[in-house]
């Protein structure tokens, strides 16, 4: 598994090739298409992330060491955003996820999307993933 840092660097590098907003969005949309399908049973209110205008569902497995995220959305762009986060955070230890500074979001021009007032829900997604990490960390310790 690559380090979180390395994954962020890779994404930044990918994005650096695009000048145009449209190319960036197409990359994000493509990203969404690479997400593994989410089992239907997780597409329920319990797994829904609020604060996005579209629906986003997030589920997290824990293998005792690392957390594996699974997600889906009914909108392409939202799905791409959550896919980016899954790519960066999935497969890492709770502590690493809790501590992470997601600097790649600023670097690829999504910094302002991180504001909790934005309708895209990016801030809620990050928060939800960190909440899972916190929960699993507690589990691990106890």
């Amino acid at each position: 598994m690559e380090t979180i840092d390395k994954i962020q660097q890779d994404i930044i590098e990918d994005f650096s090739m695009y000048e145009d907003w449209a190319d960036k969005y197409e990359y994000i949309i493509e990203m969404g298409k690479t997400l593994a399908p989410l089992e239907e049973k997780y597409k329920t209110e319990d797994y829904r992330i609020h604060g996005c205008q579209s629906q986003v569902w997030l589920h997290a497995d824990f293998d005792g060491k690392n957390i594996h995220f699974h997600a889906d959305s009914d909108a392409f762009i939202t799905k791409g955003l959550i896919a980016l986060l899954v790519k960066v955070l999935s497969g890492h230890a709770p502590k690493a996820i809790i501590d992470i500074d997601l600097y790649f979001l600023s670097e690829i021009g999504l910094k302002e999307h991180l504001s909790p007032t934005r309708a895209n829900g990016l801030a809620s997604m990050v928060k939800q993933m960190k909440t899972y990490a916190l929960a699993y960390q507690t589990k691990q310790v106890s």
Partner: protein
Amino acid sequence: MVNTNINMVPTTFDITAIREQFPILKTTIHGKPIVYLDNAASTQKPLRVMEATTKYYSEQYANIHRGVHTLSQIGTELYENTRLHAQQFLHARSEKEIIFTKGTTHGINLIAYSYAYQYLKSGDEIILSEMEHHSNIVPWQILQARHGFDIKVIPLQDNGTIEIEDFASLLTEKTKLVSISYISNALGTVNPIREIIQLAHENGTHVLVDAAQAVHHIPIDVQALDVDFLVCSGHKMYGPTGTGILYGKESLLEALPPFEGGGDMIKQVSFKKTTFNDLPFKFEAGTPNIAGIVALDEAFKFLDAVGFEQLVQHDQEILSYATEKLLSIDGMRIIGTAPEKVGVVSFLLGNLHPYDVGVILDNLGIAIRTGHHCTQPIMDRFGIPGTCRASFGIYTTKEEIDSLYNGLLRAKKMLS
């Protein structure tokens, strides 16, 4: 469609001159010239509205009513002047019938609280429609929980209209009040308000009209309509935020208890006995949004200068053009196809999520609204999560509709 005030027809409609008055139309979004198509959410403001605010604060400001000093008297005069203008604009019988509010929502809540306390009890009924804005649903639900009346709902047809027969069949001897929008913010539908009021009155039922989407689109004569209560928001009619008007028939307003208590709405206060002020002050508690109301007068002046003949004609022209243009896109589905509509087009583009479409358009400088537009029951009725909504103003051009059209083609391409 609507009868217009023929006294105010300017000879030609110069959209460039109109656009000149709106500073924001010269700005860019993501580096592209702004195409503002979110007018049903709120309209932009002409320069005169901003200038009035600045002038008022720079030269004339003080708290109003009952002040002896000059600034307070000037402020009172400006404030009351807007009231006279509002009276004239809505063709009310008296300025006592014009209450300033924070907006449509505040106006509906005011009536809902006062009316429900005074008149509604268990067994009584009120009628709403399935196309109401949340602001004309939730207040009634909150008060229903307290006073125990029933809420009946006029169902929506497939084209986004209501049937007058459906309404008639809901009217019973228990029906105390109908509260209904003049024009739907999500669908653009113009409701048959005249007939609704007539039938309601024949049944001894009061009518509250939510005119938030109507006041800047069609001329309103509250006396000709014989409406009992009517509410609207300043910010949707080219005026400032935090302002609104509640019209009520004098006798009805007299009969209602006050809503909020505080400064200005009283005649005499003691811990033993408090008496309330005369209309309209009885319903205006506390220091009002003075600067907002003073500037609202400029919105009326702007609308007067354009005139409803022009407002209606331009709106219909843009609406037809936009409808035709959008329908030429493959997979386009327009939600709300009433024969009588104003410049609001709600649509879905194939299976695309409105959010995705909205984001792509935004990156092209085009502002539309996406989502449920505070009308979830409409979305439930049509089984959709939301729509894209383009809504037009007096400054909207055909070129902007072309931009929307091209933007949608682009979005379609990017998203599939």
